[in-house]
């Protein structure tokens, strides 16, 4: 009998993503952890959620884990294959709807206290120390849709001033988004890391620690955050049930495309 109690931080992240999806929501997913999380949501927490991808594939139901948002694994069994531009228009029209209809997941290399995210480059933009793939769909998503940001929790990534703002968050606080021309009733809702979950204060729009995984602690998160973070509301997050972990390992990502199963330990 395999051990399903030895969950990893990555699995905990996937579970946190899954818990963030509300039933009936349209979830814009990428590949990797967000897809695992959203698939888990559909199976366990939010059976009526709908998965869409930025290449134009609508209401996806992949059997195997796709590696790209344009992967044939997403194309097979989806409801409609829209041209790319149709997706972009659909997303922009989200302006017409309440901010709660959709949720999306983005990743990044750096994040600041207001949830602005860098996925473009480290160092000077014109002569970068490290260059990444660029915005992809993230900038458009962050313009029109509530987001959950996935990050590795390290001091060098959680910093006051990021090198490049690829995807706008709450800009610099209250009214920040409206001032630059973005809808103010939506923005980053949550940051899920390998140590815990951060949220944004309703009034100040600044990031605070909402919860820490049992493998981490408040002190651990303070030490790994490069800016001052309010921890007064932090709670320990319940570990996932063995049944949820079994589902990730046996049904959602059995090929371990994105989530590696730890070596089994004897009990």
């Amino acid at each position, binding site marked *: 009998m395999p051990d399903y109690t030895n969950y990893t931080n990555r699995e905990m992240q996937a579970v946190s993503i899954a818990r963030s999806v509300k039933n009936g929501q349209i979830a814009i997913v990428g590949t990797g952890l967000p897809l695992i999380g959203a698939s888990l949501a559909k199976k366990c927490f939010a059976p009526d959620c709908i998965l869409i991808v930025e290449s134009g594939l609508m209401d996806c139901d992949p059997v195997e884990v796709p590696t790209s948002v344009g992967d044939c694994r997403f194309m097979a069994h989806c409801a409609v294959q829209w041209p790319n531009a149709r997706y*972009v228009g659909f997303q922009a029209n989200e302006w017409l709807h309440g901010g709660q209809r959709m949720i999306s997941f983005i990743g990044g290399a750096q994040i600041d206290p207001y949830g602005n995210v860098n996925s473009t480059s480290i160092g000077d933009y014109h002569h970068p120390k490290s*260059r990444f793939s660029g915005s992809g769909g993230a900038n458009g998503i962050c313009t029109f849709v509530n987001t959950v940001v996935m990050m590795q929790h390290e001091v060098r990534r959680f910093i006051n001033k990021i090198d490049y703002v690829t995807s706008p968050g709450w800009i610099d606080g209250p009214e920040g988004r409206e001032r630059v*021309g973005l809808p103010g009733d939506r923005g980053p809702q949550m940051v899920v890391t390998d140590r815990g979950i951060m949220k944004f204060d309703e009034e100040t729009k600044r990031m605070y620690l909402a919860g820490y995984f049992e493998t981490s602690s408040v002190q651990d998160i303070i030490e790994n955050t490069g800016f001052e973070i309010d921890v007064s509301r932090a709670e320990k997050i319940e570990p996932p049930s063995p049944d949820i972990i079994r589902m990730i390992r046996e049904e959602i990502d059995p090929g371990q495309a994105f989530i590696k199963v730890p070596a089994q330990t004897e009990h």
Partner: protein
Amino acid sequence: MSKVYTLHDAVAEFVHDGDHIAFGGFTTNRKPYAAVYEIVRQGRKDFIAEGGPAGGDWDILIGAGRVKAYINCYTANSGFTNVSRRFRNAVEKGTVLFEDYSQDVLILMFAGAALGFPYIPVRVMLGSDLVEKWGISEEERKKIDKLPDKKFIIQEDPFNPGQKLVLVPTPKLDTAIIHVQKASPDGTCRIEGDEFHDVDIAVAAKHCIVTCEELISSEEIRRDPCLNKIPGFVVDAVVHAPHGAHPSQCYNCYDYDARFLRDYDTVSKTDEDFEKFLQEWAYGPKDHFGYLNKLGAERLIKTKVVPGLGYVPKTKI
């Protein structure tokens, strides 16, 4: 009228040094690789490249030193290489001019160009460095005829005072190159699976080269016009290039060649290994069929999709 060309002749006639070019497909899906290798073989260079959702296609041309200015929104063989390595290397070393837009904007630039719009008004990019920083300065842009002088202009929406808009000029493409499942000799195209932005660039460009898996008769392709996406008169050259999207996917035909994409991840790490890759896979084979022969029948057959699934189950990534 037959527009059937050899790959060599299509590239020789419709791809020139300095051209403004866009490719169809999406990162690791339906990328026109056969044409990319042929462009490398023929030595064409100095392209103004509209990347769109790019992967190894533009990475190879950047690595081969053929791109003068690269308009980027995303460049990666997702799942195999997080950031295309020759692109990354060229940007970090400063050997290519580059510009960044959001993917939404590049896609709408293609769609806008296809609709005949001189520019597109969008709200995306506001509040980000995509509007604070220009990869290619106005001064530099003025030296390149095919690039607009400005990356964008921010203006107030004339119909909704107070709302800011980003106006982005649409590209004037010289040539679009797309790979499709079926085409007939007059250029009529059928695309199976998502068309992505392929129809838009075909309509927006002065010239369009189509490579296809199957060259079918006009009678056959007109049996079900509902499935056809591009009329023949939009197309300048039709090239029969089976497996012409290898190593990327082609819906209903074949999956990606995961081993090739993994190998590409490795060889694109260094200048030396990438040069060897070009020698082996671009310059070495005389033409596309030489490339296929080098891959071998078994390898190609093993990427053939399972009907009903649209991919090869349990492919090791």
